[in-house]
């Protein structure tokens, strides 16, 4: 187990290096820092001085990969790559365009993001699995057909509609909870985004889980269980659910670390001061340092999710021994 984890973490390093190189290429090679400066300052009225000044202000006035002007280790370290890209390996994300520490922002915004994402995730999973189990129990009946049709319709609706429609109905028309915002008595601010988050996922998730359950229910061991005289409900809950949790985990556990990142749409619509909102603002303001940091953070969390998935297999599947 320990050896396996060490190996997985060692495997993660080249992946992260790849991500790092990819973002570096995207942000500094496709467009030079000069282009970015011109973009930020407005295309029409830029002087070379202004560009130089902007670059110096943001620390982009260095060579990309190798600094020939400096002796010794500085040749490598006194470069954009080292200071802006490689530094992310020690979670040093630098500063945003408005001069604030990105690491600090991430730290403070994680809370609100989790406050929305975690309940959405847990309640959602419970709802989807229950709905899917219900459809499976009544498979090939009118209830099942209606459920599947509902799922197809729900998954054909744009995520934006759920948010806009939900805001309109629940907040504006019925005045149950505030439309947006976050702060004292956070609960009332959380309810709406969580409900909308759960509802918007019902279609695709329940349908997916249903297909997993149906695949399991066709297997031989289910017939054995029925031959024992177990009721259909018992078969479903003790035998099928346990086996189906293996493929379900594959898709579910991997997103748990990513919950930290929050949801871009929900947070920006509801004005939650989380990481998703932060990212959207950064994209709109074209603040590349933040986008870069979020890309790296995202892949770090994704890899953590993969490792977590493997570990979770050992819990539900006795056949898996991590060696």
């Amino acid at each position, binding site marked *: 187990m320990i050896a396996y984890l060490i190996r997985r973490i060692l495997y993660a390093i080249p992946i992260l290096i790849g991500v790092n190189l990819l973002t570096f290429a995207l942000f500094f090679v496709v467009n030079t820092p000069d282009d970015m400066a011109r*973009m930020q300052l407005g*295309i029409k009225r830029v002087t070379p001085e202004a560009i130089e000044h902007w670059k110096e202000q943001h620390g982009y006035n260095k060579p990309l990969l190798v600094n020939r002007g400096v002796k010794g280790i500085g040749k490598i370290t006194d470069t954009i790559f080292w200071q802006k890209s490689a530094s992310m390996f020690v979670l040093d994300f630098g500063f945003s365009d408005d001069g604030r520490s990105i690491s600090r922002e991430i730290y403070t915004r994680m809370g609100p993001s989790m406050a929305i994402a975690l309940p959405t995730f847990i309640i959602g999973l419970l709802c989807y699995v229950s709905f899917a189990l219900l459809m499976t129990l009544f498979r090939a009946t009118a209830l099942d057909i209606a459920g599947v049709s509902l799922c197809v319709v729900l998954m054909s609706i*744009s995520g934006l509609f759920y948010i*806009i429609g939900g805001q309109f109905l629940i907040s504006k028309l019925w005045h149950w909870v505030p439309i947006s915002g976050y702060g004292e008595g956070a609960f009332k601010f959380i309810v709406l985004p969580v409900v909308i988050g759960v509802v918007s996922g019902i279609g695709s998730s329940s349908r997916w889980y249903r297909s997993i359950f149906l695949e399991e229910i066709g297997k031989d061991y289910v017939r054995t269980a029925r031959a024992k005289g177990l009721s259909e409900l018992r078969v479903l809950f003790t035998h099928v659910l346990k086996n189906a949790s293996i493929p379900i985990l594959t898709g579910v556990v991997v997103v748990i670390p990513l919950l930290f990142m929050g949801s871009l749409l929900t947070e920006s619509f509801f004005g939650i001061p989380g990481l998703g909102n932060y990212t959207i603002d950064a994209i709109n303001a074209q603040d590349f340092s933040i986008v870069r940091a979020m890309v790296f953070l995202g892949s770090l969390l994704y890899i953590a999710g993969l490792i977590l998935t493997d570990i979770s297999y050992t819990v539900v599947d006795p056949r898996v021994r991590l060696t």
Partner: protein
Amino acid sequence: MSFIPVILWSDALVFLLLAAGMLVVSYVRQHEYLRLPWRRVAKNSVAMVSLLVLSLFLLVGLLDTLHYRVELKDKNAGKTVYSPEVLSVFDKLVEPLRLHTEKTYSAPLATNLYSKESVTDVSGNIVREYSRLQYAGGQKEGSRDVLRRALFGGIAGFIAAGLLIGIRRAFLHRSPFPVRAGWVQSPVIFAALSIAGLIGMTVNLAGAYHVLGTDKVGQDVLYLSLKSIRTGLIIGTVTTLVTLPLALFLGVAAGYFRGWVDDIIQYIYTVLSSIPSVLLIAAAVLMMQVTIDTHPNWFETAASRADLRLVFLCLILGMTSWTGLCRLLRGETLKLREMEYIQAAQSFGVSSLRILSRHIIPNVMHIILIALVMDFSGLVLAEAVLSYVGVGVDPSMISFGTMINGARLEMAREPMVWWALAAAFGFMLVLVLAANLFADAVRDAFDPRLNRTEGDL
């Protein structure tokens, strides 16, 4: 009035896709094992109704893809000058819709503006009133005219479609179309007639009213919605031009050759898929934006700039979304390469390339097809979200995303302006729902795990 045809990048790609599609159809018709599942699709009436809806959308999209520029009257130093405005055949067909812009908001089928404005009346006083729309209602008033037009239009559409179907039936025995069995089913005919009635109704009404109202700058919402179709279709289909070859070749190669080839390909797709896709797309689009913005001299017209951005968006979406299919194909190839017929081929000394093309690829085709039709609806939905986030299509390009983005703040207005949002979401729902239902039917028809006996009977 003369014009020159304009082929934008996205147009060229659409034509390429169309050609590829025709090749696939002719290939399918030559292979019995491929025709069989399509016949199953044709027997599914839900699938055929979806296909009908999709074809209508496709028709609009294709008409909107034939672009041209009109010659201007005044010549510049004897040389012909063409308008910087790029139009499409579709624009020409619905010219009234495009040109009949009002001052600002008006509700669907309204005859007056939605908000009061100050006008000078006959006696010279300035009064605030809901002024008449310029292009709605004509001299007649009220709901009676609307009803009459709707009724006449509906009946006309119904009859036209009925005639068409009748003619088709009469010539059915000569039809070379392989899925004819699907067309004679009554649910499909019923759906076709209702859709035709709806279209007739809309066409007849649109001549005199803004069927779905107008937006803030007075543009007809129906026109905007119809124009959005092309954008959605392009995002949903052109992206596959990138995904498909990447996923197919890398996935199959990784699964078949294993070893270091597999290691490298797995590494690439793990790196790409480890970045949350919205962020990767955002990063790439931002960078593309910088490039486009810093080189304004690359583009002759605003349309070609917006178009290039659309093509790049497809490219970026493709680059970020091939990993899932690639992984799927790799897994399937790993299974297939242990099949005994592959080993039989190996024991003949058949070359790897030939094994891939004759044995592996034909046997993973159903996975590719299912993945492509399933991805389509996801991509259409993603466009709206990305455009909202600000990393989607060019703000000047009409799309569902830009429509929603432009209209969503109007929900806060009192009284509320809802029709632009409703139109965008409605059209998107119909498109995506039809695509999803069709995709389901395709998956059921091609899924080898569902045992069937009709092949043996």
